[in-house]
C-alpha cells in the first residue's frame, strides 16, 4: 500500500465522508417524516439560503483588511448591474490593486 493509501488515513477520510453525507441527507430525512409542513417551519426553511449564505459573507468582511473590505464594497456596487463573473473580476481587481499599491 506504500505511497498510495494508509489504512488509518483512509478510515479517517471515510468517517469524515459519512459524517458529511449525514448532514447532507439529515434535513431531508427529518422533513420526510412530516406529513405536512407547519407555516412557521416553512417560513424558517425559506429563510435558509439568505441566512446561511450571509454567515459566509459577513465575517469575511468583518475580519478582512481594508483591501478585502474595499473589494467586497466594489463587488456590491457592481452587483447592481452585473452578473457573477464581472462581479468576481471587479472584486479581484480591487483587491489586487490594493495589495499592489497600499
Amino acid at each position, binding site marked *: 500500500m506504500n505511497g498510495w493509501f494508509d489504512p488509518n488515513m483512509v478510515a479517517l477520510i471515510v468517517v469524515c465522508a459519512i459524517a*458529511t453525507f449525514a448532514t*447532507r441527507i*439529515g*434535513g431531508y430525512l427529518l422533513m420526510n417524516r412530516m406529513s405536512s409542513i407547519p407555516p412557521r417551519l416553512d417560513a424558517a426553511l425559506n429563510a435558509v439560503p439568505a441566512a446561511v449564505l450571509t454567515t459566509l459573507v459577513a465575517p469575511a468582511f468583518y*475580519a478582512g483588511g481594508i483591501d478585502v473590505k474595499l473589494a467586497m464594497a466594489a463587488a456590491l456596487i457592481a452587483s447592481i448591474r452585473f452578473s457573477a463573473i464581472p462581479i468576481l473580476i471587479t472584486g479581484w481587481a480591487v483587491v489586487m490593486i490594493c495589495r499592489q499599491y497600499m
Partner: protein
Amino acid sequence: MNNSEFTEGLRGAFPVMASAAPFAVLFGAVAVANGQTVAEATLMSAIVFAGASQLVGIELFGHKVQPWLIVLSVLAVNFRHILYSAALTKYIRHFTLPQKLLGFHLLTDPQFAQSVQRAESRAGLSFAWYMGFGAMIFVPWVMLTAVGALSGRLIGDPKSIGIDVLLPIYFMALVLSFRKTANYLPIVTVSAVTSILAFEFIGSPWHVSIGALAGVILAALLPPAPAKAEAKAQAAEGGA
C-alpha cells in the same frame, strides 16, 4: 436525461467552478504538506466533497489533533447542510431514490442556492440540470485536488494572487439574489450580526451554524409577509 437542461446546468456552475478551482488546488497542496498522499487527498475530495470542511480537517490533522475531534469539526463546518437538505426537500420530491442519494452528495452551498432559485423561477427543478450544475463543480474539484497535490505548493499563498476574496464575493452575490425572501432585511441583518459576534467570541467554524440558526429562527418567529401568505393560502386551497 434532458440534454439542454444538463448543458444549462454546466454553464450555470461555471462562475462557481472559477471561484472554487483555486481552493481545490490549495487543498491538494495543503493536504500533501500535512501528510496525506496524492491518492488520499483526491479520495477525500471525491467522497467528502465539502471544501471548507476538508481544509479544516486536514489542518487539524497536520496539528496531530485526535481523530474524533477532527470528525466533530468536520460535522460542525458541515452542519449547514442539514438546513439545505431540509429546505431542498420540497423541490426534489420527483427525484428517484438513487437520484436523491447522488444529489445529496453533490449538495454544496452554490448547488443549494442556485437549485432553489431555479425551482422558484421555473416551477420545477430537473435532475438533468441539477447533475449538470453538480458535475461542473465535482469533476474539476476532484481533478484539481490531484493537480494541487502533485505539484505541491503550486499556487503559494492564495492572498498573493487575490483569490481569497472570490468565494466571499460569490456568496455575497448569492445573498443579494435572494432579496425577494420574506423578511429579507431582518433575516440578513440578524444572521450577519450574530455570525460576526460568534466569529469574534466563540470562533470559527461555529459562527456559520450559530449565525444561520439565528436568522432561521427569526424567520419562524416573524409574522409572514402579508402578500406572500395570501398567495400561499390560495395555493394551498387550490391544491387541496
